[in-house]
């Protein structure tokens, strides 16, 4: 299946802004975070097709999946 993965803020550094990924059926939101070597503790928001999701959510063909870090400075 094909999923579009979008990264935000410093998660883009040494990775990508947006990428279409070919993934095995049953891949979870958390597995993509792990595959990208993103520390789960740094993740602020996960959006699947503009709706919130959790790490255990199973992705579907055609999904658009966005991963945001926590940004905290002021």
């Amino acid at each position: 299946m094909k999923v579009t993965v979008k990264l935000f803020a410093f998660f883009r550094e040494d990775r990508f802004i947006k990428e279409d990924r070919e993934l095995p059926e049953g891949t979870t939101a958390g597995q993509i975070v792990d595959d990208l070597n993103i520390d789960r503790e740094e993740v602020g928001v996960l959006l699947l097709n503009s709706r919130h999701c959790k790490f255990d959510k199973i992705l579907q063909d055609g999904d658009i999946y966005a991963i945001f870090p926590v940004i905290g400075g002021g």
Partner: protein
Amino acid sequence: MEVERTIRNGLATEDQKALRQATVSIVGCGGLGGRTAELLVRLGIGTFILTDPDIFTSSNLNRQIFCTPQTLGLEKARVLASELQKINPVANIYFHVQTFSENNIKNADVVIDGLDSAKDRLQLAKLCRSHSIPLIHGAVKQWYGQAGVDSETSPIIDTLYSTPETDSTPTVFPMTVALIAAMQATEVCKWILQKESPLQNGWLQCDLLNCDYDQILQDKT
């Protein structure tokens, strides 16, 4: 001078009056808070409530507008009050050198998030919602920033800070602070003038490195 002060805003008289009659509470008078305050006093906001428990230190010099070698060691809220008063001597400016509480926000029309911790932001957002006052959120980290309006119908702070914080001293560029503070000031202006804004239903994610700006809009709860 009082009419000429804001004449180049080009606003209708009643809109400029609405800004003059508005009260803005700024919670956190550092990078975002100081910049937003400077913009809003020039815009013509009439009353400010400034709250910050801290003093200026040398690591603030890279981004906090009124932090200079001369103000190091001085209370941020007191310095900001003094600088705003210089820009507009007839503005009403109240300042509190303390951590925020209900008393610092309850009389405001709008509250500015100038904080730098998730825990404080969650607490401030809850407090603002309990008084039905919008919280104009901003946050920065080096090349990246975000801004949006937290309210009862769009509680973005709960979304953005649902996980515990891992980065206690974020890196912050002055350019990112200036951009996000300008967005916060703009959202204040629109809220007071009752203009709709996409950021009342979500937030804007800003990437200055790639010049990439995304509106993340949420369904109303």
